[in-house]
């Protein structure tokens, strides 16, 4: 089952920050592929959501970039800034709390699977 884009939208920043904290630097396509692989195709990041978020994170100073020429085209690599590293931890722990709260709120433990 593929998760809805509505669910992914709120967690996109967390996903990107966490992935970059585990990998030194990544480019856009690589991020989408890694997410796809890690989730067994259940989360597919759309380009329309990924790039605006990457630009916003860069503008916030959480990401730094470096460019490399691949033949005629330019590849932009993203990595975490010092602030981004700290924010990545915050975001992940915030989301963990959120999951716990949602579990409790939706009474997920007691529901038959």
């Amino acid at each position, binding site marked *: 089952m593929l998760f809805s884009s509505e669910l992914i939208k709120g967690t996109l920043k967390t996903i990107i920050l966490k992935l970059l904290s585990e990998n030194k630097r990544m480019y856009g*396509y690589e991020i989408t592929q890694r997410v796809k692989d890690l989730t067994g195709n259940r989360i597919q990041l759309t*380009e*329309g959501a990924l790039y*605006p978020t990457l630009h*916003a994170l860069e*503008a916030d100073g959480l990401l730094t970039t470096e460019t490399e020429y691949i033949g005629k085209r330019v590849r932009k690599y993203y990595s975490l800034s010092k602030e981004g590293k700290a924010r990545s931890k915050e975001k992940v722990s915030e989301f963990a709390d959120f999951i716990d709260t949602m579990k409790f709120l939706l009474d997920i433990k007691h529901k038959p699977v």
Partner: protein
Amino acid sequence: MYCINDKQIDFILNDIRRRGIEMEDLQSNLLDHICCIIEQNLKEGDDFEEFYKKTIPQFFENELWEIEQETITLLTFKNYYAMKKTMIISGIFSVTAFVAGSFFKIMHWPGASPLLILGIAAISFIFLPLMFVLKAKEASAAREKLVAGVGTLIGILLCMSTLFRLMHWPGASILWISTSACSIFLFIPIYFFSGLRKPETKTNTVVTTIILIGATGLLFSLTSIRKSRQNIFLETKTYYKNEQLLARMRSKVSSSTNTQLCNNIQNACDKIKGLILKEETGYDKLPPDFDTKNILITEGGIGDSFGGENEGSKLLNDLKELLNNYNTGKNTEGKVPVDYPFFELSSEGIMQFSNLSLLNSLTQIQLFVAGSELQLTPVK
């Protein structure tokens, strides 16, 4: 892995541009992304263009430029909060500085001018422009943006003309008149006609327009009774010159036959003048460098210290009595005139009496007394 050639790269880049992606950064991101997809999924001998045409729609719902629009929205959204925060902080700061500055000015405490300048500058150059940018972003119609823009301009002009007038800076009157004119001939018509078109804002617009016209009229009427700094300076200078003349005469009198009564009259006049000057300038006496320090006597009421049983009205009554005593037994030429209107006014009336006129009349009385003592014939 498919090997993409330069011609194909140019083809993709041109297509991305044609589809409305203008940000260079985004162009290269998308180009690399599409190239990666093609390289990973296209096999040698497959039709490149056909594959590309199938791939590109997965990037958007309706059009490719949606990505750029979303990027811009996210970027401005971030600025939006920073701007809003700055606007609120600058607003609180300027209002505090302005209120404190006005209070300091009334109390004649030091630091009034920097506070007023800082407060008004912050409201004019930070708060109002930011408010306009945020309003313009929220406004959908161009007409609403125009109203917000012209309104901001009038607000800045109003703040500036108030500052110029408070500080007696040159050009204050011109600014004041320009503000009134812009408001009446530009802002109010634009506001009125744009608001009138919408049925839901019609009544509010009419009421607000009437209030705006009334307020502008009031402001304009203030312009006409204000004097230019040049005139205020000349009046202050005339007063200062008279004071110098009086000081010179008194220095001669002191070495001759000076009586106790004369001394009492001179001292009473000095005290009253001190009260008026303190109220107006914060100083008991006009300093010689009044011009460079921007200490000017602006004509207005003489203030609270002369109302009712206050010190000023008591001193005026004492002075009248002293003058009557002085005149007793003197011939017509030696008498000091006492037919000044301020001696006859009620306690309410005296508060409205012109400070400058009272100051000059008192100096005149002092000159008469000093002149008589020097056996000079007073000038009629």
